[in-house]
């Protein structure tokens, strides 16, 4: 049973809020546009007289740029990821005709506002750092990309106004006009994604430059934009933003669950956490594929860069990355299994969980096994070479591809069990359907394993192609299984309602663990993407001759990532706190939909 009340505020009060929130964004936008307009002139002046580098006080220029860029990126992912999450939730609400989803989507768009101006300010600060401390580099980048910077600023305006219209038109564009409202949400996300795509072209040009001659002079702007790693990064970041939006939403829900005073509040935030995690997992499942695409393009651009990335001084980074991804997969599954405890009828599936754990743990261990390690002479002697005689075989891509694909299949199976936990199909063909589903799982796992093993007996150029078959097998299995599952459980008999709110407290810490881990992983991948350029600002085109040209070791990078992530979460916590202030000032407990007792909805 769901009751829902919409808080209606007066037009005067709303316009006041609008003015308070819109004004800073407009000012930020105007400042950004003026700055972009001024950049070419500023850059020209800079190249005449300024040195190539200046030293930032105390911490140095590299650390200053690194920290601000990473916080900016985290906030950018937040303001891009959360609206995507909100639109997905709004669509779910429209389909389910459930006002809870609409309320949830609105809550999160509200949180985006405060982050909007923070993101813009951090972006401006980053720009000032480049202009001030890396003037020659920035002049060069501006010379290549100044035309796209205009488009960036215009899109920023468009996104800002669309998001505001989307949020403030929520009541106005309800009922029969709801599709217009949803279209605004989608449009805001298109603008946001376009902004990301433009800035990605700058960043990826630094890694895999194209459209310039040997001396670095521009020959084709489109080629400079459409460089090797541009599209893979676009896809990877888009998916990553959805995961990020979902995990942050889930962490927010977990925080509110832990702070809840009543059962109704716990029920609401338990449900919110589930939705956030559901959206995050859905995108997380395909994220590794996007990562492989990016890796493949790096190799296609420059083999040396690819090999340095995977087998050179960065080889240990991938062990750490594997641990983080292992935590994400195991954590997501663990949350689903804990969630099944509040679903009557889920006991039927408990017996499968140990097997799922075994597959996940084995996959995790394989993924965390390195191949080419930078080792000491003593270690190399002890192992009989740089590769471990036995475990070294698990370090190659054949084994890793197999492991991650099986982990994805396992996570999907966990989700499927959760989905049907309190449902019994009433279709006469249910047995055949389930048999087919198991067969599809078995065939997909067999294909993945077969190509994994076969990969050891062919040349690398052939082996790379096998990963495509493995990915297609997994994606095909997910599609086919869901195509059977949806009609099979339509109108299914219920074994009981979900007891929202009756989930162990540790599950909420799992949600926080996932958000922290994913954010930390974003920082680590940022270091990897940037670090593979080594002593180049623009790889092979513009050398970094500053005192900071050394690419630091993983420990130093981890210290920076942790500090930056902690600052980011502190700021996010502040924003969440602002959100609760708004609720209190409205006396707005009535705004929260109450999930009384339990619900069929998932």
């Amino acid at each position, binding site marked *: 049973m769901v009751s829902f009340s919409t808080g209606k505020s007066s037009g005067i009060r709303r316009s006041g809020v609008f003015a308070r929130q819109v004004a800073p964004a407009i000012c930020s936008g105007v400042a950004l546009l003026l700055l972009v307009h001024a950049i070419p002139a500023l850059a020209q002046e800079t190249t005449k007289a300024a040195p*190539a580098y200046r030293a930032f006080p105390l911490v140095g220029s590299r650390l200053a740029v690194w920290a601000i860029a990473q916080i900016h990126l985290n906030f950018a992912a937040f303001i891009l990821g959360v609206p995507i999450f909100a639109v997905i939730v709004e669509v779910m609400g429209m389909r389910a005709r459930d006002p809870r989803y609409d309320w949830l989507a609105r809550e999160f768009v509200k949180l985006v506002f405060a982050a909007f101006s923070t993101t813009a300010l951090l972006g401006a600060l980053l720009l000032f750092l480049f202009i001030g401390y890396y003037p*020659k580099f920035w002049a*060069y980048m501006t010379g290549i990309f100044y035309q796209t910077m205009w488009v960036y600023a215009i899109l920023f305006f468009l996104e800002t106004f669309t998001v505001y219209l989307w949020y403030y038109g929520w009541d106005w564009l309800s009922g029969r006009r709801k599709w217009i409202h949803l279209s605004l949400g989608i449009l805001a996300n298109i603008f946001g994604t376009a902004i990301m795509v433009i800035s990605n072209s700058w960043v990826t040009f630094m890694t895999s430059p194209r459209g310039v001659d*040997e*001396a*670095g002079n521009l020959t084709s702007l489109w080629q400079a934009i459409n460089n090797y790693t541009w599209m893979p990064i676009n896809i990877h970041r888009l998916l990553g933003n959805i995961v990020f939006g979902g995990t942050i939403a889930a962490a927010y829900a*977990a*925080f509110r669950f*832990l*702070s809840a005073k009543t059962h109704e509040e716990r029920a609401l935030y338990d449900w919110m956490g589930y939705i956030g995690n559901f959206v995050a997992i859905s995108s997380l499942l395909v994220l590794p594929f996007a990562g492989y695409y990016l890796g493949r393009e790096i190799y296609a651009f420059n*083999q*040396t*860069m690819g090999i*340095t990335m995977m*087998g*050179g*001084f960065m080889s*240990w980074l991938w*062990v*750490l990355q594997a*641990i983080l991804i292992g935590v994400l997969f195991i954590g997501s599954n663990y949350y689903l299994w804990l969630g099944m405890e509040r679903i009557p009828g889920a006991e039927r599936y408990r017996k499968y969980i140990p097997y799922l754990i075994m597959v996940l743990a084995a996959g995790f261990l394989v993924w965390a096994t390195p191949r080419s390690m*930078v080792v*000491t002479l003593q270690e190399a002697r002890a192992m009989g*070479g740089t590769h471990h005689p036995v475990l070294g075989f698990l370090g190659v891509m054949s084994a890793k591809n197999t492991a991650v694909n099986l982990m994805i299949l396992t996570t999907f199976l966990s989700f499927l069990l959760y989905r049907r936990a309190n449902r019994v199909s009433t279709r006469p063909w249910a047995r055949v359907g389930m048999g087919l589903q198991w067969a599809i799982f078995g065939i997909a796992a067999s294909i993945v394993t077969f190509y994994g093993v076969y990969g050891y007996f062919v*040349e*690398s*150029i052939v082996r790379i192609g096998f990963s495509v078959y493995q990915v297609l097998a997994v994606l095909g299995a997910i599609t086919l299984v869901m195509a059977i599952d949806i009609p099979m459980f339509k109108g299914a008999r219920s074994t009981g309602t979900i007891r929202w709110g009756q989930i162990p407290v540790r599950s909420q*810490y799992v949600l*926080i*663990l996932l958000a*922290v*881990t994913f954010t*930390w992983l974003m920082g680590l991948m940022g270091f990897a993407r940037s*670090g593979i350029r*080594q*002593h*180049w600002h623009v*790889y*092979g*085109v*513009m*050398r*970094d*001759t500053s005192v900071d*040209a*050394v*690419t*630091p*070791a*993983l*420990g*130093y*990078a*981890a*210290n920076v*990532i*942790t500090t930056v992530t*902690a600052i980011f*979460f502190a700021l996010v*916590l502040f924003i969440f706190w602002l959100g609760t202030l708004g609720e209190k000032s409205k006396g707005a407990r009535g705004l929260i939909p109450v999930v009384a007792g339990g619900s069929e909805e998932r």
Partner: protein
Amino acid sequence: MRVPVVLRVSLFALAVMGVYTYYANSIPQLQSKPPEELSLEGANVTADQLVKAGQELFKGKGVCEICHRIGQKGTRAPDLAGVGARAAKRVPGKTAKAYLIESLIEPTAYLVQGYPPIMPKVDKPPLALNRSEVWALTAFLESLGGQVTVKLDDIPRTVGGTGGGQAQVAELTLPGDPKAGQAVFMGKGACIACHKAGSIGASPVGPDLSQIAKIQTPQYIMAKILDPASMGTVAGYPRGVMPPTLGQTLTAKEYVDLVSFLLTLKGEAATAKK
């Protein structure tokens, strides 16, 4: 006492990040340092010194070891054990030396069967080895089962000529006067006592600087004058001979003039006139 939720959550998040940070700090710490330029032009180096310098390049700046092994079959690139002798038999009519040089600067000209064409040109960015470095690397490869016969003149003069992708940053315009700098070089700086610069000077005590602007970055030249020890010593020359006091004895103008003069030394005969 009940711990506030915000504190519990914060401590938990910090503990999670702490574990990741601890792990990252407990594994081998590998930095990637920018490679130093090796300058041998005009140097009086022995074959052994050349091979040693080439071996360092093989393991370091050249990043050859990522794909090539010596005495072990690689999956990405051929085993280089015995390549110094084997190279002579690869292409009829081509000497081992010529084959090895071609393999470094035009790696796809002749591919060993079964290996993909993935090797970059070593004298182009991002490796951007200069002529001296290609010379040393060739000598090292020759030494793997063969005789070291390579001379600097065997390395084409075009090698490393693009400046190693430094086009943007090497364009350093100093307010100094090269003519005045030449006077400092010959007079107050007393550089001429040890170095040759185009048509001036002839002393073999220090390296020949006639092409210094072509083979070294402006940053290197500036730092070398002020703090010679920190920039290393060119192979084949004794350490600690270059005086570390020029930073104190030269005025700022003299220093800038001297650097401006050195930046004109690109190997052309007319760069420095008496």
